[in-house]
């Protein structure tokens, strides 16, 4: 990479935390008022734990694309499974700008992935337990899949070793960050169970709306520049996309988000009579998530179409998971990050320009790995952690509100909080 490209990457990298801040605000706003201080503090804790565990342990497992890794040879083809970098920060090479920038982007990416399950466990996930789960995500789950995709692992080599297009394409983390985070969110909701009084005896779900939709929508707006920067930096650092394509990446990111938002708005307007603000916010985020797979390689029209489909998918899967499968996911993290992340990966196989034969197969292998390997592994490690350290707060704490129970003070101390407003009478 040229010096100018590296300087641009550095500027883009410094904008990525905006996406993380936006995601934290969305998570905080979609929870209840008596858990909002806990949600924001958990976001900061989770980002801190993710950064430390990734730097000390995860980065060694993740490795870099041009470095050798640990693997096996089957039928004359190499299968690279783990990175071979040193642990405990010994891998950091300050003299090599590109690897330092790549490491920094991966660090922001793991912070974002760790925030996703937090929203699924809102109102009932203990602070210490979310930190334990994040430590596992940052030191094992994310680096493992990240190495396969970005660290020169077997998914990245599907093209060179097995003739499947250009290998598994995931420009800025639709699978590696978003789908991995969304899958962790699903595992966490399974382990935690639904919030107290979320479902009535008849099986009907109670609506528990987010406490501050203004914060949610502000978070969505804040995400846009951060996400554009994330997509552009990922494309340049992981796939050596030229600087000239950065404007196209920004336009495609915006179009994807816009298409998804408008699809969510139109669909909720058509189904419920009025647009639903929180579902529209989910639509916006879902569009940005879907754009992360291939914004550099698709046309603006394809980006718009990708966003429209993502918006429709979100509305139906949020409802389906909540009402049919009793998945209590307050911020819709599973739909927004896992479902649209997977859709983004598939759209890369469908719409990518100059696609080589077999590209769609490579994308399908990546999706199969997320579902068949990452999900069971995530559930297993979180289940083991839960056996040692209880994940869910007790009933009294949940009735009192997790702010008062765990922090000793609420986010809005001058407001009267009605702790029993959702108790069945």
């Amino acid at each position, binding site marked *: 990479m040229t010096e100018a490209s590296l300087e641009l990457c550095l500027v883009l990298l410094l904008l990525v935390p905006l996406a993380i801040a936006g995601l934290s605000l969305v998570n905080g706003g979609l929870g209840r008022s008596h858990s909002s201080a806990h949600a924001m503090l958990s976001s900061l804790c989770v980002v801190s734990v993710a950064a430390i565990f990734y730097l000390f342990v995860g980065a060694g497992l993740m490795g870099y694309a041009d470095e050798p890794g640990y693997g096996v040879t089957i039928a004359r083809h190499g299968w690279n499974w783990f990175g071979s970098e040193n642990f405990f920060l010994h891998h950091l090479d300050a003299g090599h700008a590109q690897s330092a920038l790549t490491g920094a982007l991966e660090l922001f990416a793991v912070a974002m992935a760790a925030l996703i399950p937090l929203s699924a466990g809102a109102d009932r996930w203990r602070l210490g337990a979310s930190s334990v789960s994040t430590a596992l995500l940052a030191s094992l789950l994310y680096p493992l899949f990240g190495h396969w995709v970005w660290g020169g692992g077997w998914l990245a080599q599907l093209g060179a070793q097995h003739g499947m297009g250009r290998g598994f394409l995931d420009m800025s983390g639709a699978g590696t960050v978003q789908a991995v985070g969304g899958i962790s969110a699903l595992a966490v909701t399974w382990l935690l169970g639904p919030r107290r009084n979320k479902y009535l005896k008849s099986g009907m779900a109670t609506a528990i709306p987010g406490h501050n939709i203004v914060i949610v929508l502000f978070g969505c707006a804040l995400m846009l520049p951060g996400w554009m920067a994330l997509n552009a930096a990922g494309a340049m650092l992981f796939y050596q996309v030229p600087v000239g394509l950065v404007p196209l990446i920004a336009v495609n990111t915006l179009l994807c988000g816009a298409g998804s938002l408008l699809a969510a708005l139109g669909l909720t307007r058509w189904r419920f009579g009025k647009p639903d603000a929180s579902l529209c916010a989910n639509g916006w985020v879902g569009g940005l998530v879907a754009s992360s797979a291939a914004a550099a390689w698709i046309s603006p029209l394809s980006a718009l179409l990708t966003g429209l489909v993502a918006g429709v998918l979100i509305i139906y899967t949020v409802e389906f998971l909540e009402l049919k499968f009793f998945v209590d996911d307050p911020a819709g993290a599973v739909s927004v990050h896992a479902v649209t992340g997977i859709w983004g990966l598939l759209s890369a196989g469908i719409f990518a320009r100059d696609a080589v034969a077999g590209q769609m197969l490579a994308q399908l292998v990546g999706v199969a790995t997320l579902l*068949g390997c990452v999900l069971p592994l995530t559930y297993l490690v979180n289940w083991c952690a839960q056996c040692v350290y209880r994940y869910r707060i007790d009933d009294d704490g949940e009735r009192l509100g997790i702010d008062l129970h765990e922090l000793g003070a609420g986010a809005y101390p001058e407001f009267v909080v009605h702790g029993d407003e959702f108790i069945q009478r």
Partner: protein
Amino acid sequence: MRVAGLLLMLSGWVIVLTAVALLSSQTSRTAFLVCGLGVEVLGLIVCLRFSVREEGRQR
């Protein structure tokens, strides 16, 4: 039952890996890949259906 669903998903992934490693024809690879994905989706449905029953018991 949830464990059974997760094992089913893992089995689907093994089918996909085996197809990539051992088959060279694009057609047979595609067929096995789709079958593997089908097994994974089946496993996911088993996991989700188990959640429904579990929540029902809790109520």
